[in-house]
């Protein structure tokens, strides 16, 4: 977690990450990216929005599994709760998705604390803990599939409105507002991550991850620390779910709770760098456009690759190769490994 020692700060036993610089970088990034919709064609803009949704999803996962060290294979549960709670409130009660977003965060956090408590109470560790999170996500998927309360397997459509409405998070297709909202939510998630890591609980979290027994011996409330971390992680991930439904207009149990969502929460963080502030965002920026880049390649391949014309599935192969390469060559992820190289030792 440590970055370069900032000489301006008073010396400390442990080198402090340059929080100020990270926050400045977030600010610069936000300002620079805010102009993106003005230069991107609409089709690319939907790719950019997808990148941001992945980034939020992975930022959430990273808090619990990267910084907290509790590997989750079931983040679809929180993404899906964020999606379902908000869409249910919207369709059944006519409540704005902004309120739905807060409600979704609360429900996701509560559910996460409940299953986190059960898993930790019974001392599930490592792979067993990961499997239990997966099982809970599946449980929600099956519940939604067979429950009349949430329309069973059919899911929900977001009703189309006749005109744009910020209150209901609905705009013209291809409107820059979608991108800006996604960007604002991503920035919030990043800032939350930084603030959390600076906080007492955040430091406890890292300490508990590094050595649980030592942390407990020092009087750190291990269980409480872990539950707070899990709750925060779930809340951030649920925001991605809420936004997803408003942007894509449709959710069903597989879209919300399917295991592919859990994988999409993990991959950007792994590619970018687990337990780094920027890793999930970098990973999402690499993975998000991947299938569009490969699809474009397949539509009009460069000279010498004409045999690729009209084939499908290249992105899946590129995905696989990329994953293997990154795990072998950059075991800390793209951002994580770069940071390592730039660090003064």
């Amino acid at each position, binding site marked *: 977690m440590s970055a370069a020692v900032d000489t301006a700060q008073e010396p400390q036993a442990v080198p402090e990450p340059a929080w100020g610089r990270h926050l400045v970088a977030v600010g610069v990034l936000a300002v620079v990216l805010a102009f993106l919709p003005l230069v991107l064609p609409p089709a690319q803009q939907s790719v950019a929005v*997808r990148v941001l949704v992945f980034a939020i999803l992975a930022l959430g996962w990273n808090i619990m599994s990267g910084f907290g060290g509790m590997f989750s294979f079931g983040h679809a549960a929180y993404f899906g709760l964020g999606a379902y709670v908000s869409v249910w409130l919207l369709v059944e009660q006519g409540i704005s998705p902004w309120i739905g977003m807060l409600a979704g965060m609360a429900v996701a956090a509560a559910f996460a604390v409940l299953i986190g408590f059960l898993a930790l109470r019974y001392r599930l560790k490592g792979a067993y803990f990961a499997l239990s999170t997966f099982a809970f996500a599946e449980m929600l998927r099956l519940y939604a599939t067979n429950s009349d309360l949430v329309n069973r397997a059919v899911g929900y459509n977001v*009703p189309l409105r006749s005109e744009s409405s910020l209150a209901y998070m609905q705009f013209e297709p291809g409107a820059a507002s979608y991108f800006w909202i996604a960007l604002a939510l991503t920035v919030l998630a990043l800032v939350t991550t930084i603030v959390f890591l600076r906080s007492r609980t955040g430091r406890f979290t890292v300490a508990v991850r590094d050595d649980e027994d030592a942390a407990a011996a020092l009087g750190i409330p291990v269980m409480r620390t872990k539950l707070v971390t899990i709750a925060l992680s779930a809340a951030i991930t649920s925001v991605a779910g809420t936004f997803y439904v408003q942007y894509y207009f449709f959710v069903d149990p597989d*879209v919300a709770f399917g295991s592919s969502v859990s994988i999409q929460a993990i991959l950007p963080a792994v590619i970018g760098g687990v337990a780094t502030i920027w890793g999930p965002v970098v990973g999402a920026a690499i993975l998000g456009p991947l299938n569009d880049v490969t699809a474009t390649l397949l539509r009009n391949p460069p000279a010498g690759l004409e045999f690729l014309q009209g084939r499908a*599935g290249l992105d899946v192969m590129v995905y696989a190769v990329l994953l293997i390469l990154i795990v072998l060559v950059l075991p800390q992820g793209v951002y994580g490994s770069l940071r390592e190289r730039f*660090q003064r030792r």
Partner: protein
Amino acid sequence: MRKPWIMAVALPLALTACGGSAPPGTEGTGQGGGGGGAGETITIGSLHPLSGAAAADGQQMDNGAQLAVDAINEAGGIESLGGAQLELASADTQGAPEVGQSEAQRLIQEGAVALVGTYQSAVSQNVAAVAERNSVPFVIDVSSADQILQQGYRFTFRLQPSAAVLGQRGAQYLAEVSENAGQPAQRVAVLHEQGPFGTAITASFTEEAQSAGMEVGPVISYDPASVSDFTTQITTIREAGADVLMVAGYYRDGVLVANAVDTVQPGLDAVWGVANGAFDTPQFPGEVGEAGEGFFDANYRLDTTNPETQALAELYQQTYGDEIRTAAVLSYDAVRVIADALERAGDASPQAVRDAIAETELESLIAQEGPISFDENGENANAAPILMQVLEGAVRQVYPEEYAETEPVYPATPGL
């Protein structure tokens, strides 16, 4: 890291690096037009799962759409637009709703005047919302979920029968066929996949069956992705004393049902598929052998009695070396609907095409109860399934009479 600044600069670069989208007018896999019209080129977007679990069907459907485009160009293109040539822009949805959405957005942006697709209901939902918001017509070739057209969308049309019609006709045919055989079905057990498709078919089937005086039960659902054996379910059905078993599911589970029925011998008068993904496929009898003999399926079906359809099937076999599936014929029809609308509108703007599609009266290559025409919701008003049965190891059309290649055999107790 010394300079988090790097991120601030590198990220937008990475994001814009993906901005190089294909220019409009990329050639499809076809051999282009032969009509030589003086008109412009009109692009139709085709959205299907070309990779992923449903790739075989998706590829077939994309091929079907391409053959239709080639045939129309061959015949001189769109005459009312000066012989304008059509061109198919194919996109891979991967069966994922969000990919379908961004691809639909891209095709529209590159100038597609209409879209066809997409096979998976969840993807079609998303594409329908995109089409609606961009005011571009979308003709669904295959996707059964009722709710897609219950949103009040004006730009979405569907060729295949909806789940409501499939279930309703499935029950009606059962009542009629069993009645005609002098053995009216009284107690129908149901086995359905738990997704939107199986659930919707079961709901409409149950309603119609009950109003025809049948008892429905037990109703058992299963997860098609994970199920590995149906012995327990079929035993439950045997204990319940059902005469007929209705099955709404996909290919792999259909094969498992046939094997379980063969093992348990529940003494049914018939196994009755409704829009079943297995019982009417050419591969099914070969895969399960004797166990599948006599199985019924009420489903949409290419019209084998229509010479045009026969010619298409032959052309498909020559071009792609594979037996054409009904889904591909639906895609072929979807492109024909759009071309016919262009011809009548004499105008290639999406709005004009949409208005002309709404007025469609076009003979179908699918077996249905009249020409293709759309009701106010965009449903194909004459779409209906027909009944097929596995007889002597081949799928034959057996009911209603105008499509029957042979008489239905009822009761058709499996495994005897």
